[in-house]
């Protein structure tokens, strides 16, 4: 029975074993906790980076299938060793450092990018008792870490000593900061529902998943987190076939690999956060008694959300930069603010009623807001239609008779 008990909550079991071991070596309790946290952080960070390997393979396969081609299939059965080959290639490439770079920003930028993604893993609750740290301001922490991501991009652009890199970095960071506002406002609406900023409390208070309370909020959050990550259809900053430079143009070898890893991992991390906040995280049948089941539920939910992101990536064409900025500033932000006011009023007026009634009314309001907002924006922006360049027929472009073309000067 002890084995079953250990298996049902392995992480706590390991933690207690380590603390017992340290106690036997005569370490004081304060240093014990510190060392256990250190080991836990190392394991979590390494685990997150190792997940990236699977993610890279899966994403390339899925995008390949969406584009009607096979993904990588040469290295190993179904190409599952492809990321290993990628890793080896990136490790052994030469670090070409351009001439006039500023050493500290240039070398710091990939580190800050990866660090900002890994920090997000520290507040995600994996089960009732297992999480990196039960921060009581976890949502503000998530937003702040997004800010660190923008900083990494700016440092990369500036440190490269390349005007085009800098320009691209500014554009990428303007995109990232613009999409952080709707995310933050939707998180505010979530805090109203749950009464706490801590992720553990938010997951615990979701007897009914918040996506039913705030479907519009979930939509806004999903779109904003895809855009903040810089993935398609918002990937103007790293458009593979268009720009001469991205902000990570001057990086080679492992440093570029770190940007690459940060990009892919960020997609999965925002899927995990989305499913924690909106889909109920580790909650599911039987997750309170058997914590490892909670971990499995979280994995399933976030894989579904991540798959949705990859699906969108493979299907939609890229937005123009002015369309992208118009979406956030003219559509998402006012909509999110209106949603917040509506949620605040409705939840205060319906404070002690049945939860399902609240869900129903909020659902109706969400859908209504979406359509009203869309209609208003459409009407507002109508006067900006582009002028049709020319509607005159051009004689030379439409030869009627090729044998008489030369008479008109063709």
């Amino acid at each position, binding site marked *: 029975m002890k084995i079953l008990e250990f298996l049902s909550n392995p992480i706590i079991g390991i933690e207690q074993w380590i603390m017992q071991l340290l106690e036997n070596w005569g370490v004081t309790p304060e240093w014990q906790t510190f060392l256990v946290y250190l080991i836990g952080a190392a394991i979590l960070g390494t685990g997150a980076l190792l997940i990236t390997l699977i993610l890279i393979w899966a994403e390339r396969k899925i995008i390949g299938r969406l584009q009607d081609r096979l993904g990588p299939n040469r290295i190993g059965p179904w190409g599952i060793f492809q990321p290993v080959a990628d890793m080896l290639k990136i490790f052994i490439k030469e670090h070409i450092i351009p001439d006039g770079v500023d050493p500290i920003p240039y070398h710091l930028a990939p580190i800050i990018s990866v660090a900002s993604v890994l920090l997000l893993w520290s507040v995600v609750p994996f089960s009732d008792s297992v999480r990196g740290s039960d921060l009581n301001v976890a949502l*503000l922490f998530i937003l702040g870490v997004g800010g660190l991501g923008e900083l990494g991009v700016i440092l990369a652009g500036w440190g490269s000593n390349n005007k085009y890199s800098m320009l691209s970095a500014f554009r990428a960071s*303007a995109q990232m900061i613009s999409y952080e*506002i709707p995310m933050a406002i939707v998180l505010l609406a979530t805090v109203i529902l749950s009464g706490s900023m801590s992720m553990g409390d938010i997951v615990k208070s979701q007897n009914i998943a918040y996506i039913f309370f705030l479907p519009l909020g979930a939509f806004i959050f999903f779109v904003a987190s895809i855009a903040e990550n810089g993935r398609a259809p918002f990937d103007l900053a790293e458009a593979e076939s268009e720009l001469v430079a991205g902000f990570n143009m001057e990086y080679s070898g492992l440093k570029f690999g770190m940007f690459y890893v940060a990009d892919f991992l960020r997609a999965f991390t925002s899927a995990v956060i989305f499913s924690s906040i909106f889909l109920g995280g580790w909650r599911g049948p039987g997750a309170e008694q058997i914590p490892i089941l909670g971990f499995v539920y979280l994995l399933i939910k976030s894989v579904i959300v991540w798959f949705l992101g990859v699906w969108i990536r493979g299907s939609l064409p890229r937005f123009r930069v002015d369309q992208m900025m*118009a979406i956030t500033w003219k559509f998402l932000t006012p909509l999110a603010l209106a949603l917040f006011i509506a949620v*605040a009023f409705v939840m205060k007026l319906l404070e002690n009623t049945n939860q399902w009634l609240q869900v129903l009314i909020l659902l109706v309001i969400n859908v209504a807001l979406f359509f009203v907002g869309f209609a208003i924006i459409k009407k507002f922006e109508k006067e900006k239609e582009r002028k049709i360049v020319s509607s005159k027929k051009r004689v030379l472009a439409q030869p009627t008779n090729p044998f008489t073309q030369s008479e008109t000067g063709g």
Partner: protein
Amino acid sequence: METYKPTWIQFKIQYYLYGLIFLIFDVEIVFLFPFAVAFGKLALFAVVEATIFILILLGGYLYVWRKDALTWQ
């Protein structure tokens, strides 16, 4: 490799505008977080207060919108 002649960037002021509007809304959201956390214990009047807070800033936002500061040229 250095470029042939010194180049300069046409740094659009649009970046600064986006940063400025982001800053203002960031501070607004920071003010609204304690309101949201203490929501269970507040009266309806507090919701009205917070709505006034947001509406004042929405008025400014409307001004910014009409002034065309949000459009990327």
